[in-house]
C-alpha cells in the first residue's frame, strides 16, 4: 500500500459548542469553506467529496451544492460512525491517486439533533439491538462499560487507570483554545465525577458537541504549490469482526486493533516507537486503553502506569491526543483527530506543538470495528 501520492493540504472546522442553533448543513459548509481557504483552493477546484454518518448528517451531495458546486465527479457517503474515519480518508486518498478525483473534501458534522449517549424518545428497535434495547441497554457508553469491566476482571486494570487517561487528555486540552473542556482535572476530580454507567464516570465519556471538521486532499504534485507543508498519509489498515456487533466480540479486553495493528505496521514498515503523535480514538477512556495495547505501545494491563509515568505526554514516549481528544476537545467522531495530526505535522500547533513531530498515528473506532492511518510530514 502506498498512499503517499496524495496529501492533506487543507484543514477547516467550525467552533465546537454544546448547542449551535444551526443546521448540520450550515456547519458542514462552513468547515469545508474554511478548509479550502486554508490551502488557497476554491469550490471550483473540488471534484470529490465524501463523509461518513449514521444517517444523521448533511449528505455529500447537499454539502457540495451548498458551497456552489454544480458538477461533482466523485461523491461518496459511507454509513458508519467513527469506526470508518480511516476508511473514508484512505478511500479519498485512493480516489486521488487513481485519478477518480483530483481534489477531494472529507468532512464530518454533528449537530444537536443527534446525541449518542441517551435515548429520550420512545423507540422500536430492530436488528441485533432488539435483544438489548428492551433491557434499557441501547447506547454506546453502556456497550463499552461492558468491555472495560471485562478488562478489569482479566487484567486487573482499575478506574484509576482509566482516570490517568482522562487526566492526560484534559491537561493537554488546557493548551487548546478550541477544546470544549479545558480545565485540568486531578485524580480526585476524576473519581468525584458522577458515575454514569459503572465502571464509567462522566470523565470517561466523550464530550458531545455541535460542530464540523473538513480536510482537503489532493495529489502530492499539486500539494507542492499550495500554501502549507503537505502532510502525507503513508499507510492505513482496518478490521471488522463480529459483524461490527460489540456484544458478540470474542475478547472484549482487545478491540479491532488486535487485527488491524499488525497490518498497519507491516504496510508502513513502522513500529510504535517511530510515532511522535498518537491521536487515539477516544469515545471512551477505555477505547484508548484497549487500542493502545493493541497497537503495541505497551503490554496488557500496563496503560495506567504508562500514562501515570508521563510517557503519553510531552517529554515522554509519544504524545497521546495533544488536542484533548473526543473526551475534551469534543466529539467530532474522530475527524478532529486528523485535523490535529495535520496541524502537528505542519508544526502549527502553537502552545501544544509536539517538538519535531514527523509521524502521527490516527486511530478510528472502538470495539470490533475500526482502523488507523499513519501520516508523515515528509513524502517517503
Amino acid at each position, binding site marked *: 500500500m502506498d498512499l503517499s501520492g496524495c496529501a492533506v493540504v487543507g484543514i477547516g472546522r467550525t467552533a465546537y459548542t454544546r448547542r449551535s442553533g444551526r443546521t448540520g448543513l450550515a456547519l458542514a459548509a462552513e468547515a469545508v469553506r474554511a478548509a479550502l481557504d486554508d490551502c488557497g483552493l476554491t469550490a471550483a477546484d473540488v471534484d470529490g467529496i465524501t463523509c461518513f454518518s449514521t444517517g444523521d448528517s448533511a449528505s455529500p451531495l447537499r454539502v457540495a451544492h451548498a458551497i456552489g458546486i454544480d458538477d461533482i465527479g466523485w461523491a461518496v457517503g459511507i454509513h458508519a460512525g467513527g469506526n470508518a474515519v480511516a476508511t473514508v480518508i484512505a478511500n479519498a486518498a485512493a480516489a486521488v491517486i487513481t485519478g477518480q478525483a483530483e481534489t477531494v473534501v472529507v468532512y464530518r458534522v454533528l449537530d444537536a439533533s443527534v446525541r449518542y449517549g441517551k435515548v*429520550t424518545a420512545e423507540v422500536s428497535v*430492530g436488528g441485533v439491538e432488539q435483544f438489548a434495547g428492551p433491557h434499557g441497554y441501547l447506547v454506546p457508553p453502556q456497550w463499552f462499560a461492558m468491555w472495560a469491566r471485562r478488562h478489569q476482571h482479566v487484567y486487573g486494570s482499575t478506574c484509576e487507570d482509566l482516570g490517568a487517561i482522562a487526566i492526560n487528555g484534559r491537561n493537554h486540552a488546557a493548551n487548546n483554545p478550541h477544546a470544549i473542556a479545558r480545565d485540568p482535572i486531578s485524580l480526585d476530580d476524576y473519581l468525584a465525577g458522577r458515575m454514569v454507567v459503572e465502571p464509567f464516570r462522566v470523565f470517561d465519556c466523550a464530550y458531545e458537541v455541535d460542530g464540523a471538521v473538513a480536510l482537503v486532499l489532493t495529489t502530492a504534485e499539486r500539494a507542492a504549490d499550495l500554501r502549507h507543508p503537505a502532510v502525507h498519509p503513508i499507510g492505513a489498515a482496518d478490521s471488522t469482526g463480529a459483524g461490527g456487533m460489540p456484544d*458478540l466480540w470474542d475478547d472484549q479486553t482487545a478491540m479491532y486493533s488486535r487485527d488491524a495493528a499488525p497490518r498497519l505496521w507491516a504496510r508502513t514498515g513502522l513500529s510504535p516507537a517511530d510515532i511522535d503523535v498518537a491521536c487515539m480514538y477516544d469515545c471512551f477512556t477505555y477505547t484508548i486503553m484497549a487500542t493502545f495495547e493493541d497497537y503495541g505501545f505497551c503490554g496488557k494491563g500496563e496503560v495506567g502506569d504508562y500514562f501515570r509515568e508521563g510517557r503519553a505526554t510531552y517529554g515522554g514516549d509519544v504524545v497521546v491526543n495533544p488536542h484533548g481528544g473526543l473526551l475534551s476537545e469534543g466529539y467530532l467522531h474522530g475527524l478532529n483527530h486528523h485535523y490535529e495530526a495535520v496541524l502537528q505535522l505542519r508544526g502549527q500547533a502553537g502552545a501544544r506543538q509536539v517538538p519535531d513531530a514527523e509521524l502521527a498515528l490516527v486511530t478510528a473506532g472502538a470495539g470490533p470495528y475500526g482502523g488507523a492511518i499513519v501520516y508523515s510530514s515528509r513524502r517517503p
Partner: protein
Amino acid sequence: MNASQGPAVDRSALRPPQPAPDVDTAPFWEATASGHLSICRCQQCGLWLQPPLERCRRCAASTAFEPVSGDGTVSTFIIQRQPAVVGFFDKVPYAVALVDLAEQPGLRLPGRIVDIDPDDVAIGMRARARIDALAGGDFHLPVFVPVD
C-alpha cells in the same frame, strides 16, 4: 448526554424500547410470549446462532428455533447509574449483563440481572433466564436471575 428541550414531559410514563421483529427474529419473540427461551439453530451442523439467521453462517443450511436451558454465566456487566434509556429513567440503578448461554461458547444474550442488588453482581456468576413481560406492549423478554 443532552436533555431534550421544550415543555416538561413525564419521562417516567414513556415506554421502554420495544422490539421490532423481522421474519428472522420473530420466532424468538413468539417463544418468549409463550414463556420459553428459544434460540436459532442450524438444522444440519447444530450451530446456535444469535442473532438469528435464515441460514447458518457456517454451513448455509436452514435454521429453526429450539428451546434452550436458559442457564448461563455472566461474561461482563454494567450498572446503569444515570438515566440513559427511555423507559428506564426511573429504574436506575440497574444491572445489565452479557450472559454466555450454556449451550455453546460465545452464545450470548444481553439481559437485565434481577432479584439481586446490582452491587452484588459479579463476572462468572451463574444465572438463569426468566421470561418477564415487557412494559408498554405485548412483548415478553428473558431477564436473568442469579442461581448461586
